[in-house]
């Protein structure tokens, strides 16, 4: 994945001039989308593939799809170049080419996964020996711990760390990231351990290691313990007890509250949103050692983001949820599902405006983020009004790039703590003033 991404990275600089030609537009946007979503590629591919089979991504979807916050050196430059262009082009290509874009995207993205999938399904029909092969183990454990999801969770935690108004401490950052990653691996493994028969019945999740018998449940639990215990210990002892406690609480919330609740009540979505909101809070507390308003704001932004993301996604998976016995809003309370998604899109605008009030960012942040927040709110409104497959898909795909962009803008508008000391200058409130960018 990383390889392909790098290739695309070099190709990106040529894109801006080609953007104007709509005939190339879809293709380029494809690349842009892929660039933005390289990790999500797997996810999107499966989603696109699965749409025809009515599959579900849920259990991952909520706590999951945090867009990766790209490592900030070169990527930022490239993203800056693209950013001014893509919001403009989104509305341009709205109705007609959207579908083509989707198909092209799914076509292009499924190419590389079609071949392995065909091979896979042939293999699938054979009987396999249930013996653990050591060379398969890394791959199996990666899938068990949902390594891509874990990477995204770690990115949001890093975003929380980066936004904290303290001098950057590399060891602390690395320890916090590692600890969060291990905790996430543990939580995901336990989640899969709990859900074997349900996963077997859903198209997206039916290829998981425990479902396929590639690993025994005992080993899965041991792996989870051997990730979770050191992870939390690392956070508690190597970072600070507050972060460790949050990590342990999040594991508990995800495995013992969210996972069983998925089958009991629609409130699981809210719990899942909290699960997703905690990693950035953990990043912040790792840096500062305390739960400030800033941490809660960052958590709040991620909490609100979950709803348009997940509700839009779950709209297309109602059949699988219904058959599998999952209690989701999209099945039981469809009106509520859409209302909540819209409500939280609007909440994102509000939260972005609160950020400068809390001294986390300058006032440029709500201004710059307004277009993307308005756009996702517009899509949220369309979803609310139309309640059909296409509006839900639009909203979902928007959420995939909306979050990384928002976090990136937030980071570039971060108020340097040095500046905060000369409050006198700041009160002048000049919008165009250069903000000291703190690179990690």
């Amino acid at each position: 994945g990383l390889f392909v991404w790098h290739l695309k990275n070099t190709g990106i600089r040529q894109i801006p001039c080609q953007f104007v030609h709509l005939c190339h537009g879809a293709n380029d946007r494809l690349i842009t989308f892929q660039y933005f979503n390289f990790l999500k590629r797997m996810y999107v591919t499966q989603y696109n593939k699965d749409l025809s089979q009515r599959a579900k991504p849920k259990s991952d979807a909520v706590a999951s799809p945090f867009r990766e916050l790209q490592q900030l050196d070169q990527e930022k430059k490239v993203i800056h170049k693209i950013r001014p262009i893509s919001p403009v082009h989104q509305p341009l290509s709205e109705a007609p080419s959207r579908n083509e874009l989707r198909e092209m995207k799914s076509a292009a993205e499924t190419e590389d996964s079609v071949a392995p999938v065909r091979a896979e399904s042939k293999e699938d029909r054979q009987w396999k020996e249930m013996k653990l092969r050591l060379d398969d183990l890394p791959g199996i454990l990666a899938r068990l711990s949902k390594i891509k999801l874990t990477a995204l969770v770690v990115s949001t935690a890093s975003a929380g760390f980066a936004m904290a108004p303290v001098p950057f401490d590399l060891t602390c950052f690395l320890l916090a990231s590692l600890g969060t990653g291990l905790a996430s691996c543990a939580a995901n493994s336990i989640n899969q351990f709990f859900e074997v028969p349900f996963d077997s019945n859903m198209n997206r999740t039916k290829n998981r290691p425990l479902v396929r018998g590639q690993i025994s449940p005992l080993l899965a639990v041991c792996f989870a313990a051997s990730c979770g215990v050191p992870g939390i210990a690392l956070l508690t002892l190597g970072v600070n007890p507050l972060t460790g406690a949050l990590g342990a609480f999040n594991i508990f919330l995800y495995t013992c509250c969210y996972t069983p609740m998925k089958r009991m009540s629609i409130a699981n979505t809210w719990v899942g949103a909290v699960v997703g909101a905690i990693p950035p809070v953990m990043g912040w507390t790792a840096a500062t050692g305390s739960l400030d308003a800033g941490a809660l704001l960052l958590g709040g932004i991620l909490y609100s983001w979950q709803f348009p993301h997940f509700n839009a996604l779950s709209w297309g998976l109602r059949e699988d949820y219904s058959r599998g016995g999952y209690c989701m809003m999209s099945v039981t309370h469809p009106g509520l599902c859409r209302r909540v998604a819209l409500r939280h899109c609007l909440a994102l605008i509000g939260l972005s405006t609160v950020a400068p009030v809390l001294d986390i960012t300058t006032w440029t942040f709500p201004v710059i983020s307004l277009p993307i927040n308005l756009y996702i709110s517009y899509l949220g409104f369309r979803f609310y009004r139309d309640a059909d497959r296409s509006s839900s898909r639009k909203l979902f795909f928007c959420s995939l790039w909306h979050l990384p962009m928002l976090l990136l803008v937030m980071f570039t508008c971060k108020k340097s703590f040095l500046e905060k000391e000369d409050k006198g200058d700041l009160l002048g409130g000049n919008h165009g003033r250069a903000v000291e960018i703190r690179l990690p």
Partner: protein
Amino acid sequence: PPAHSCNDWIGPPDKHSNLRPVIFYVPPEESPLERRLREARQEAQACDQRFWARHNRAFRQEKEEFIYSRLKAKGLEMRDETGQKATLNAEEMADFYKDFLSKNFRKHMQYNRDWYKRNFTITFLMGQVALARALKWLRWKKKNV
């Protein structure tokens, strides 16, 4: 699975239940603990298979009935001129999904409880068996050293 194999074998997903059947290997000197584990797993497999096969079949059947009744209400046939099966769109199916989920809620709750219990028991037994085997291996090593 070949006769000489010493492991369990897992097969392709079942057509009705989507679960993968496992053929368990019975070692010649199976300890009582190992036998308990194997029997627990066999029983769990049978329970799961029964539940999901029945559940999925019910789903398919009720879905067909729903589509049929809705089409009839609209005055359409099950198959149109080209012989293709007529389907309802997602919004119309949504009523069915909601209905089906609430109808089967109690059944799922019961199954969930049973599944968690079985899962924990089996995993715990696996732990015990693994521990017993490890101790046996250590004792054998000590003897042969």
